[in-house]
Every structure is written in C-alpha cells, then in structure tokens.
C-alpha cells in the first residue's frame, strides 16, 4: 500500500488530512514534536481505518537536525512513500514580536525557514526518484501583507514563492508540487478570535487537500471562494489599502 508522510501531524488540519488519506488506503507516517500526541494519533488512525501508522519525532525548528531526522525518515519509508504533506504553521503573537526578536524569529523560522530546509531535503529525495508529490500548506495571508499579521503573512508569502520555484525545478523530474492556501479554518489558531468569517472545518479543508494532490493541481485556495476574495484584496491599490484597519 502507498504511504504518505505528514509533517506537523498533530494539528487539527493535519489530523483530518491523515484521516482523509487513510480513508483512501494510504499508510501513514506522522511526524511532529509531541510524541504523546503522535502516538495517540497513530493509534487512533490505525484503529479507525486499519492502515499502518508510524510516528517520527521531528522539529521543524531544529534547523540543524533536519538532515539526520528527516533524512532517516524518508529512507526508512522506502519505495511505498508516494509523497509528503507539510502542515507546519505558527500564528504567533504579532504584537509581542514587534519588540521581542525571539518571537519574531520563531514566526519566521516555523512558517518559512524551517519549512524550506525540510522541503529542500524532501525535494532532493523525490527528484532522485523521479516521482512523488510535495504538498505544502501556505495561507491566504501570504497573498497580501496586512497590519494584523504581516510577519506570519510574509513568511507564508515567501513560502508560496519558494514553492513556485520548486514546482518549476521539479516539473522536469515528474514530481508534483502543490501549494495549498486555506482561508480561515476552525482550529485553535482561530478559536476565540473576533472578526473572522466563513470559517471552514478542518475536514472540509482536508478533503480539498487530498483532491488537490490526486488531481495534480498547482495552487489551490480552500475553500474555493478564497481565490476570488484574494483577487479582490490584491486588486486594492496600495494607496488605499494602507489606510485600512486590517
């Protein structure tokens, strides 16, 4: 049976993605930082769907350790590994980050640098094999910087551009690169935050991610209407946008 590696497996969206792949008969390799949560998740998915599940400790912020931990993980996964879904994100405290460089670094490293370093290793792995898919979850926040989350947004935006380049490079090796841009999703990232709208369930987003991967899409907004919302948002002239309270 084919398998899929999920990075950042303990979040609500990741759990739903894992369940979606499992329901389509994929074995799972679940990677993250929290062993207790990973073990519970692995047990749950195995019991519900009957697929094989493995866990792997991996911290995207451990920038030097990727080669060792991620490299081993990929090799161990062997030929059955069809692809990777990267679901690492950290909204952070933007207000604190203005004065606390550690928090600022954390936002940037978790959402961009750490992901890129991990994706580099993954890209090399699949490029050699001339097959597979790499699916990374960015965000609509990366489409335009706005005052309430521009650190997060800029990191995600940078990630989207990196993925574009990666898509271009890996196309010549028959490896698919899928960029997912969710809007507001009902998870702990958004729970309790005011002024949100059109909150999508993690299950709905997960179904969209699975469909995007199997259909070989390039850039997918989830749910679909965010593509058009962001088109409008991007169209607003900077002279006007800068005056808005976003």
């Amino acid at each position: 049976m084919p398998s899929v590696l999920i990075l950042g497996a303990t979040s609500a969206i990741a759990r739903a993605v894992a369940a979606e792949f499992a329901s389509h008969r994929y074995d799972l390799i679940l990677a993250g930082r929290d062993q207790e949560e990973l073990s519970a998740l692995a047990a749950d998915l195995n019991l519900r769907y009957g697929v094989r599940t493995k866990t792997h400790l991996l911290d995207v912020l451990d920038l030097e350790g990727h080669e060792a931990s991620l490299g081993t993980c990929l090799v161990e996964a062997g030929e059955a590994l069809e692809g990777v879904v990267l679901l690492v994100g950290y909204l952070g405290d933007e207000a604190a980050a203005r004065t606390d460089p550690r928090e600022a670094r954390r936002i940037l490293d978790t959402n961009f640098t750490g992901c890129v370093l991990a994706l580099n290793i993954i890209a090399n792995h699949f490029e050699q094999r001339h097959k597979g898919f790499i699916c990374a979850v960015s965000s609509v926040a990366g489409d335009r910087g706005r005052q309430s989350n521009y650190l997060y947004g800029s990191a995600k935006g940078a990630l989207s551009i990196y993925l574009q380049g990666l898509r271009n490079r890996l196309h010549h090796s028959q490896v698919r690169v899928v960029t997912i841009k969710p809007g507001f999703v009902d998870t702990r990232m958004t729970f309790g935050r005011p002024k949100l709208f059109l909150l999508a369930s993690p299950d709905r987003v997960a179904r969209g991610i699975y469909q995007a991967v199997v259909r070989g899409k390039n850039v997918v907004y989830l749910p679909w209407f965010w593509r058009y919302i962001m088109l409008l948002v991007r169209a607003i002239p900077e002279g006007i946008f800068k005056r808005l309270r976003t």
Partner: protein
Amino acid sequence: MSLQGLSFVTRPLSGWGRYPVERCHIFRPEKRAEVAAILASGAQRSYVSHGLGRSYGDAALNHDGGVLWHTRLNRLLSFEASSGVLECEAGTSLAEILQYFLPRGFFLTVTPGTKFVTVGGAIAADVHGKNHHKDGTFGNFLLDFKLLTPAGELMVCSPTSNPDIFWATLGGMGLTGVVLSARIRLRPVQSAYVWVDYQKARDLEEALRLMDESDYRYQYSVAWIDCLAAGKSLGRAVLMRGNHAPAEQLPSRVRNPLARPSQRSWNLAFDLPSRLLNSLTVGAFNALYYAWHRNVANQLVDFERFFYPLDAIENWNRLYGKRGFVQYQFALPLEGGHAGLTAILERLARSRRASFLGVLKRFGEANAGLLSFPLPGYTLALDLPVTNGLVPFLHELDRLVLSSGGRVYLAKDAVLNAESFASMYPKLEQFREIKHRLDPQGLLSSSMARRLGIVEK
C-alpha cells in the same frame, strides 16, 4: 505552552432542553496536555467539562465561568478483540465507537437513548439504557479511567485503584476532575439487529405487571407511556422488548448482518413555534401512537431504530421552539413504586401539561457510585415544554418523588433545588468530602453544582 492554546470564546450555551441558557467562556483544547495547562492557567475561576451537550439542563454549563469542550480530544487508543476492551479519549462519542466497532462485531454493552454522547459524559452521568435490569449502568462495564485532578495529577481510577475516587467520579457530573481517557468493555454481537416483541398495555397497572412478570426474558425492555391519557387509560403504554439477533436467524435478504442499514435522517433546521406542542396536539399524537401499534412478536428491528429512534431527527429539540423544554426523569424504589407512579401520572394528566410519550423502564441493582441515579425499581422520563408555572409544578413532582423514596436524574435536571437534592441522594456528604479533598479551591464547578449546593456559590 503557546498563547493560542488558551484562547476561549464567550457565548451563550445551553443543554439539550435549551433551558437554561447561560453565558460561558468556552475552551477547546486540541491536545491532551492543554487541558492541564488550561486548568492551571488561572484564566477562569472554575471549569466544567462539556461533551456533546446532550445533558438537558445545566450540568455542563458554568455561568460566567470556563467550559472545556472535549470534542477534539476524541481519539481511539487501543482495542483488544479477545476481551472487547476499548481504550479511548473521553471526547470519543458512542456514535464513533459504533461506527468503527459494530462492523467488527461489537456493540456498546450499555447505551443511553442517544449515541451522541461522549464517553466522558457517559461516565459523568453514569448513563443507563434499556437493559439496566440485566446489565446495570455504563459504569458496570468501565474498567478504569485516567482522571486529571484539579491539582494537576494524573490518576488511574478503578474499583481497585483509588476506588473512592472511582465511585465518586462515576455519576459525579464532572466535579471530581477531568476524565481524559477510559477503558470500556464492548459486547460481542453477531448482527446489527434486534428481535423485538411489541405489546400494548391498557393502563399503568398492566404495563408494570407485564414488565415485572416477563422482563427477565429480554435483554432490553422499555415502555412508551401516554402521559396525557387519564382515567381508566392512565399510563396506557406500548412495551418494546428485545434481544440481539444471532446471525443465523436473520432472513436471507440481509446481506451483511453487521452493516448499518441505510440511514435516512431529517434535520429540523429551524425552531417550531413554541405553542405548536400543546396538550391538544400532543394528546392527539400520543393517542394515535398508541392506536397504531399492534401486539406483534419477533419483529426484526435494526439497532438504530431500536436504540436511537430520535437520533434520526437531528436537532429534534427544536420541536419545542425557542422556549425550550425540561426533561424530568425520576426513579422510584420497587416498594410503593406502583402507587408512586400512579400518583405522579395522575398529577401530570390533571395538569394538562403536554408531555410527549414518557419512557418507562425497570431498574435492577444499583452500583456503588455515590451520586449514581438508578436504584432498584422503576424510572419514568417525560418532556415538558417550558411554560408558565412549570418550575413550581416540577417541585411538586419532586415532593411526590421524595415521598416515595425516589430521586431525580441529574443528567436531565434543570430545576431541582438543593434541599430536595440532598434528601434524594443520601451519599452526598461522602461525595462532598472526596470532592473537597480533591478540589479544595473549587476549580471544577458547574451551574448545576452551585444550584444543587454541591459547591459553594
């Protein structure tokens, strides 16, 4: 712990009866470790756990306080087919357990009348089903659970390990600690079907006589009672009693004995006008329901229809409109039980308060749960719309229940007062002592706990 883990939503919240409605600060932990962090955070003065919100009153509400939603802490952890023992997180619903384990030949040993209840909720209310006379409550098949105490300690509780805390937590309405996971024993079954005998009883006397005489022949037994019928027909009922159907007895048209039959469900997407359910309309419905049923034996009924008839209508509580309703369920001991039930049904019929069919069951032996509801005798559950004078009327019923030596079920209750509660549950002092030992600061509290005087206001 990141800041995000502690965010909360402030919203009006209610139980299934939609009465009362209270403003609560709701947390939704996604990782087990977050529960301890929330309790230790000081973000709220007190917290109560909340599952799928099927308790009717304020058991899972905490007015102006913290509420912990367990819905995302719902993972299955392990299963041993030889013993039928399943370990799962407390937010797992009975519906999910059936979804994954009935196809493997396992049913819930004890299930309440809805499957949209979490394992944690089932423990907190020590729920019972149609088989109490044979099998007892949910707690009878609960091997152990892991309790997070208010002090932050993770304790394994079972009848042999921390037994005092085990028996306090079972039926303890979430007030001793937060159950994070539990091990329960499922029942092996051969099919998703039940053989059911339907019998009509002219009146309460006949219903009770039939149940007393022949319940022993059935794993499951329940009677639907017309609470509006008066005079000679007082308590006329339809008895529905059954046993699991073995695979070889199923007709050939049933291809897969363990498959769930196709589920048609309806959704009541809006509130019905509050006055729609009144003594005329409900009386007519009840009469029709009674007339329509025939005495038939050996009907093959799928488990959804037999165990969860109302689950097919999502949001059925909207039938009662925005004002909501109260479900009143009480238990009376065997001795004097007939007379007690008769008195209450007469009082109810006289009041012309529109109760849909009441549900009558027999209870077997009680367990050692300090606040566990069932006692050997009878139990009757009724729905009553929230209309003028309901609360004093229910207090009158409370007095009738008390005078028969009975008690009210906390999972349904919304209006019981502290005095009556203390009289109904003689082990309350023992419970308070354990509660105080585990939770001197009152970190775990609910609107119900304060109303019933279990904790200080």
